[in-house]
């Protein structure tokens, strides 16, 4: 696996969630391709200098979310079956989280729902001009 993970252990976001988010993003963006082998728990823990149980927890959750699969004795792989849906779902998860944060931020500085909606329309117009 390419060194695509960057962890900020001092952030308030739990490390296992950072690992999950970044692997999902990598799958969604095609940096990690279906069938690709992931580093072992020990290797990734050493690469990132984080606790191995934390990495194992992230891998367990990623398996549960059907992003990766683990073959006993062979290692963990990006899921080959249904990986397109997996990747889309993973991308949607990442995007949903970003949008939630953006809306929360907007609300916290006192914008109304209709103002946020207007901002959202402006953003859509900018990034999807062909659909306007």
């Amino acid at each position, binding site marked *: 696996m390419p060194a695509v993970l960057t962890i900020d*252990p*001092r*952030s*308030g*976001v*739990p*490390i*296992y*969630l950072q690992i999950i988010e970044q692997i999902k993003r990598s799958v969604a963006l095609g940096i990690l391709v279906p069938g690709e082998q992931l580093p072992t*728990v*020990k290797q990734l*823990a*050493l690469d990132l*200098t*984080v*606790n*191995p*149980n*934390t990495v194992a*927890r992230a891998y367990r959750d990623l398996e549960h979310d059907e992003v990766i699969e683990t073959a006993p004795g062979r290692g963990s792989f990006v899921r080959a079956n249904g990986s397109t849906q997996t990747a889309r779902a993973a991308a949607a998860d990442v995007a949903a989280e970003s949008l939630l944060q953006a809306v*929360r*931020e907007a*609300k*916290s*500085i*006192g914008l109304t729902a209709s103002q946020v909606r207007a901002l959202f329309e402006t953003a859509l117009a900018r990034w999807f001009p062909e659909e306007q």
Partner: protein
Amino acid sequence: MSISIEHLTKRYGSFAAVDDVSIEIPSGCVFGLLGPNGAGKTTTFKCMLGMAAGSSGSVLYDGKQLTPRTFEQLAYVPERSALYEWMSADEHLEMQKRVFKRFDAKRAADLMQLFSLEPRKRVRNMSKGMRTALAVVLAFALRPEIMVLDEPTSGLDPVNQRSVLKLIIDASAQGATIILSSHQIGQVERAADHIAVLNGGKIALSGAVDDLKAGSKIVEAIFETDSIPVNGLAKDARITHVEKAGRILRVTVSSGGDAIANELSAKGAQSVRLVDLNLEDIFLSAVGGDQTADVLESV
């Protein structure tokens, strides 16, 4: 091998250095013991190792008392160097080899190189960092099942600190159970999966690092006037700290941040923001916070 510390108390006269401390360390866990100076960390370690007798309570390894056999599987890096001033690094390795059957001379040689230690240098001519590194080499060359590491990075430069962290992570990945103390919270944040904060001999906080981080937030609410309806907040068990500055209310929570944010919105807050806390913030709030400002104001 799992470690259970059950209701451990260690008194010196009327002073309780360790006061009814209970800690469960599952097998394969890296457990970070945090606390200000004098909180009781080193005393806890000494009681774990049988170097000090607890006044009451027990320490069990896989449910059993510490036996010479368990001691064989254990390595300890003490806070204050337990090295002999007049002996060289090599002589320490030789001594360790004679005492412990598990001692791996090849690994010791590799670790000596990793930390750029000179085999023939005498401890009396070593810096603080070199002494720490030698103690670390002696411990990790045993490939122990249990490690008790009291400030295993003190005096080390950042490169060697990182090496010690990787050694801890590698040992943990191979199934060792490790308890470590460090004032470098950032290191504990990386290496440990569980922590406890000791303060005044008592456990102030404990749990899985990721769960503590996920739950702990500051909810910052800004109201229209400075008469903020704070009634009832103090009774909420999820709230650990409340601070009011004019129209701004800051509530530190251990869980339920979203729910409390909604409550404050319902109470009329104009703006509510959730801020994540890192382990250092969580630690400081557990030990009674940062009192520097009070000191600075008084001088």
